[in-house]
């Protein structure tokens, strides 16, 4: 790979950088406790929580493990567990 002058890259290429590798705590969502309020999706600073048909899923490619979703979840449906690699 040759680098570009001025680190110029096409738009949207930040998706290729999987920042999930930075994580040392992993959020685990218990769907049985989830009230589907969407708080986790709103507070995630990396837009790494996605909802489809009222099912919430954490995208571990980009989740950095900050724990905001677990802290804010009103149903305590998200637990932070140590990341294992």
């Amino acid at each position, binding site marked *: 790979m040759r680098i570009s*002058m*001025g*680190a*110029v*890259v*096409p738009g949207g*290429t*930040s998706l290729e*950088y999987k920042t999930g590798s930075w994580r040392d705590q992993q959020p685990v969502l218990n769907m049985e406790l989830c009230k589907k309020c969407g708080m986790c999706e709103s507070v995630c600073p990396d837009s790494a929580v996605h909802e489809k048909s009222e099912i919430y899923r954490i995208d571990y490619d980009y989740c950095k493990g900050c724990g905001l979703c677990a802290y804010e979840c009103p149903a305590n449906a998200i637990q932070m567990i140590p990341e294992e690699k």
Partner: protein
Amino acid sequence: MDTTEVLEGSEAVALAVQACCPQVISAYPISPQTHIVEALARMVANGDLNSQYVRVESEFSAASVVSGASAAGSRAYTASSSQGLLLMTEVLYASAGMRLPFVMTGVNRAISAPITIQVDHQDTISLRDAGLIQLYVESSQEAYDMHIAAFKIAEDPRIMLPVLVCMDGWILTHSYERVSCLSQEQVDRFLPPFQPENFLDVNDPKSWGSYAEEDVLMEFKYAVQKAMQYSKGRITEISSELATITGRDHGGLIEAYRTTDAEVILLAMGSVVGTIKETIDKLRSQGERVGLIKIRCYRPFPFEDILKNIKEAKVIAVLDANVSVGSEGAVGMDLKAKLCGRPGVPLVIDFIAGLGGREVNEDRIVEIVEKAQELGKSGLPLDESYWVGLNPEIVP
């Protein structure tokens, strides 16, 4: 046809910038830079210059505006001094890394504290490591010519770096001298339109300065270093190309003045060079073998050109209008670092001269030459820089 007028230095710079037709100008007023951007604002307001003049609330924003404008493919210009240049610093490092070729004038002024408006080179020297090409001028005429060259240097497809043209505050910006200006046709023939390969475009989105980690950051920095090294040849070529148009040859990266057979060579940059030349002429008429190397381009450092012109020299007296506190003057350090380890090189003595507007007149230059001759006989370097005209008795 070109025209010759008696112009204030700031007006000369404004006319040069006007002739280069920057699409975006942004600046925040600070003495002694203000007259330049006031003149440009007047040209825009009067319809004599078709530029977007963006008024901002700080120098940080001024640098950010020209950085963004340059990324969008516009020729852009800003100017500042002293604290203003320091406030721009973060943006300027990023701009060099993003390879954004705008031109700015650094009107030299000392750095607070204590607060002062007087001239020295501490402000632009503080930007030494940012990745900006740094050019210094001796006169308002050279400032005019250098600004026109600066856009061409910056926008060279293999350089693509911001260029900082440094000129001494007050001494150049606020004094009047005869300045010849080129015609618009002459400037247009010399300076092609700015057409970068990459530019911000809503239909083809791109990011500048994207994230880099330990696997590539070093290569990005080396690319800037390579561009700087490459620019040495282009700056020389562009300077002589302009000289054939103007009929005025200010030199390339340096100007060597009466250095052939010189035993003592002064190394200096900025307006003090004019005084040094006059002093050298007088000393030469008395039989002293004294010469001068004027640094026109400080970054990249023109070591090879200096080396070619110091063959006979026993001592090089470097005049530094700055000090890297805790070490010595920046230009002296650069030269010593490059000479170190080479056989038969001259002794280098660093003189701190002209801080905060302290006058460097003929007497002081003679004092420097005599001190250099005396130290040259002993052959021993000084442990510290020699502070010219210092009154140590008033220092607590």
